């Protein structure tokens, strides 16, 4: 369970396969994410990159293979998946805020129900996080009154409230109007600066280039290339990668 430097990866998947019916979406993926590392997963739509991310916190059950988190295999019967998930924050493409709760309650719900934090302490932490993402003034608003960018920043605050060891982002800016993409990416840049371990499925090549330690390129259910950004963008490893990069603004 150690890489060549002797440190336990934060997350590791081994020989990961996932099928939906007849369709095999992941065809044996191996990937380890180190503590403090920022990994950007890119690739064409339908390549399996979101499924790979969703297998990491078991929102999808792998068909076969292993998922490890902080040195423990988590896709085994008897593992308390709730305890694992509360340590892995997840941000979704469509935000998935709870529309019946105010912004503040969105950020306190899991703190009080899962961590059993007291209400005052949970609200204090929620307010600090909302201030951090620039939405202190919106705590009493309901999600449906917010813009897409604001919703996604609340969603990030909601995930951070659980003090996760790693943050998983599933195309966090893909559903946003162009002018709102930057405010969300700025929030993510700040997390990178703080040293958060992050796995980000994204089409934002600018963000991947400046923020990621490693780019992982997924195509047709397999990792076909991975490299640090300078090398990945500077000297694409294969014709397939070059072909993909030509079609996407970087």
């Amino acid at each position, binding site marked *: 369970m150690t890489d060549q430097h002797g440190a336990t990866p934060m997350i590791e998947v081994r020989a990961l396969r996932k099928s939906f019916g007849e369709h095999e979406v992941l065809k044996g993926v191996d990937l380890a994410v180190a503590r403090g590392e920022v990994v950007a997963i890119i690739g064409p739509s339908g390549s399996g990159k979101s499924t790979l991310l969703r297998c990491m*916190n078991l*929102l999808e059950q792998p068909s076969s293979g292993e998922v490890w988190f902080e040195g423990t295999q988590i896709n085994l019967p008897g593992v308390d998946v*709730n*305890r694992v*998930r*509360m*340590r*892995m*924050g*997840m941000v*979704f493409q*469509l935000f*998935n*805020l*709870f*529309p*019946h*709760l105010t912004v503040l309650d969105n950020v306190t*719900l*899991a703190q009080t*129900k*899962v961590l059993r934090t007291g209400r005052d302490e949970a609200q204090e932490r929620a307010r600090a996080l909302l201030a951090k993402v620039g939405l202190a003034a919106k705590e009493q608003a*309901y*999600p*449906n009154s917010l813009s897409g960018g604001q919703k996604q920043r609340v*969603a990030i605050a*909601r*995930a951070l409230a*659980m003090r996760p060891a790693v943050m998983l982002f599933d195309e966090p800016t893909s559903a946003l109007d162009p002018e709102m993409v930057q405010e969300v990416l700025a929030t993510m840049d700040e997390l990178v600066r703080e040293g958060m371990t992050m796995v980000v499925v994204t089409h934002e090549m600018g963000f991947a280039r400046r923020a990621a330690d490693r780019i992982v390129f997924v195509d047709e259910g397999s990792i076909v290339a991975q490299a640090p950004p300078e090398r990945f963008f500077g000297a694409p490893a294969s014709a397939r990668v070059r072909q993909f990069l030509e079609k996407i603004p970087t």
Partner: protein
Amino acid sequence: MTAGLQAVHDSFPLLLHGALVTVEVTAMALVLGAVAGLAGGLARVSPLAPLRGLAAAYVSVIRGTPFIVQLFFVYYAFPQLGIRVPPMVAAVCCLAVYSGAYQTEIVRGAIQSIERGQIEAARSLGLSRAQSMRYVVLPQAFLRMLPPLGNEFVALTKNSALVSLVTVQELLLSAQLIISATFQNFSVYLTIGIMYYVMTSIVSTGTQLLERRLKVYV
């Protein structure tokens, strides 16, 4: 016509008492039916197949047979097995079970209408399946249940007239007793028609008000 008005006037306390019994029967059946509907609806979306099957069978049988047959079965057929059910108990239980089957489908539909992403977000934060249901899905589903539940409560109020057939002296049976003494069909049936309409209007207005109050976040 004046004889009719006189009959209604003289027997009005009896009609009011009947209306009160209708309200009692309906209210008790409504509460028990809602409990059955919530339990049935949750069972319908349960990960446990036997529970789902049981709930599906309940809905299928109750919706697939006439209410009046269910009521007569409990009131007239159970005694053959040595189980004597008092009229009021038979009335409330049968109405509750009947309405509960329809409410089960309302609850199931509302739960399933909540976007999958809501449960995923809740589970990704570490909430258990039950907690996700309790704090995320059901509060949103409840708002979507209200309009069809309002219809169901109105239907329940009207169906309560059928329990007159097992000697529960609610509004319809009270009216029939008055008519058998006065022969004033027109006035008495018109009167109880209005009384039923008032009751169902209160029920549907009530659910609409509740819906408006809960709708703050939409």
